[in-house]
């Protein structure tokens, strides 16, 4: 039971159900609107979510963190900088999942700028393009994606000036 209560999936689902019931208790008509929105959006994205998760799952097993570190470890110089501003765009995961990888990169001697560029480029989130275009359209998605490379570049330059913490 304790384990169940600590489970994220359980927490989010029970919170969702709880809120819905609460609204139903207070104002039944509003509950219909909520349920309708959830239902419609959910089936709208389910197929896309399954596809996107498959992309990310495949990426995870075919491109191991060790491989990434090896590629980017050579990372000084122009080639490394270009790589670090673009390659992470294709990775999945949340901030929680990439921080450990960054720690490894840092221990291997990656500069502050390279790490910041990596995080920013990772924010490009190309695996989620199907979702982004569905909800915000191609012009938004493509413009954002190209700006992310620029964003990662600027971050790298600026963060190199800030410098690193003494590890």
């Amino acid at each position: 039971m304790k384990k169940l209560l600590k489970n994220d999936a359980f927490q989010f689902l029970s919170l969702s159900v709880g809120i819905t019931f609460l609204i139903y208790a207070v104002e039944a008509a509003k509950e219909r609107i909520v349920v309708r929105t959830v239902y419609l959006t959910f089936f709208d994205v389910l197929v896309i979510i399954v596809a996107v998760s498959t992309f990310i799952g495949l990426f995870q097993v075919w491109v191991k963190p060790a491989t990434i570190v090896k590629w980017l470890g050579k990372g000084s110089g122009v080639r490394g900088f270009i790589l670090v501003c673009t390659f992470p765009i294709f990775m999945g995961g949340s901030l929680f999942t990439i921080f450990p990888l960054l720690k490894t990169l840092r221990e291997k001697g990656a500069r502050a700028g390279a790490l910041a560029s990596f995080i920013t480029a990772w924010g490009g989130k190309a695996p989620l393009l199907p979702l982004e275009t569905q909800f915000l359209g191609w012009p938004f998605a493509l413009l954002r994606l190209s700006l992310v490379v620029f964003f990662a570049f600027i971050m790298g330059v600026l963060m190199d000036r800030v410098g690193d913490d003494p590890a």
Partner: protein
Amino acid sequence: MRAGLVYLIIAFGLLAASFLKEKQRSQEAIKATIKILYTILPVLIFVFVLMGLIQAYVSRETIAAILGKETGILGILYAELVGSIALFLPPAVFPFGGYLHDNGAAYGPIAGFVFTAILIGVTTLPLEFKLLGKRFTTARNILAFIIAFFLSLFMGFVLG
């Protein structure tokens, strides 16, 4: 829906190719995929309930007044603040952004929300402090907020 099916076919095609190349690794990929779905789906449902709540209680006019075109710089700043604080998994960011757009929010603020929701996490700060250092973390998050602001301004300008 049709676009979704195309993606699904591509995904399964890649998966099949992966199986032809190496069976064991592909089984790992399927396990990883299921784990991702298990993490994402409950959060998505929660975000959809949140969207439903807004749909039920917040009028289009209110959203437009806070995040609409006329709000200019302020709208982007509001959206960035929400994006920085909100506990959002990246896959939930886009449906929510699209939802706000359908309900009167302009592209600039939505871009601000998307950038910061993915790149800045008040909830991830402790971990970032611990793994990458205080100086790095503080500078990175502040810079990300500022640069995201200008990029969002630009996106709002281009997309109208």
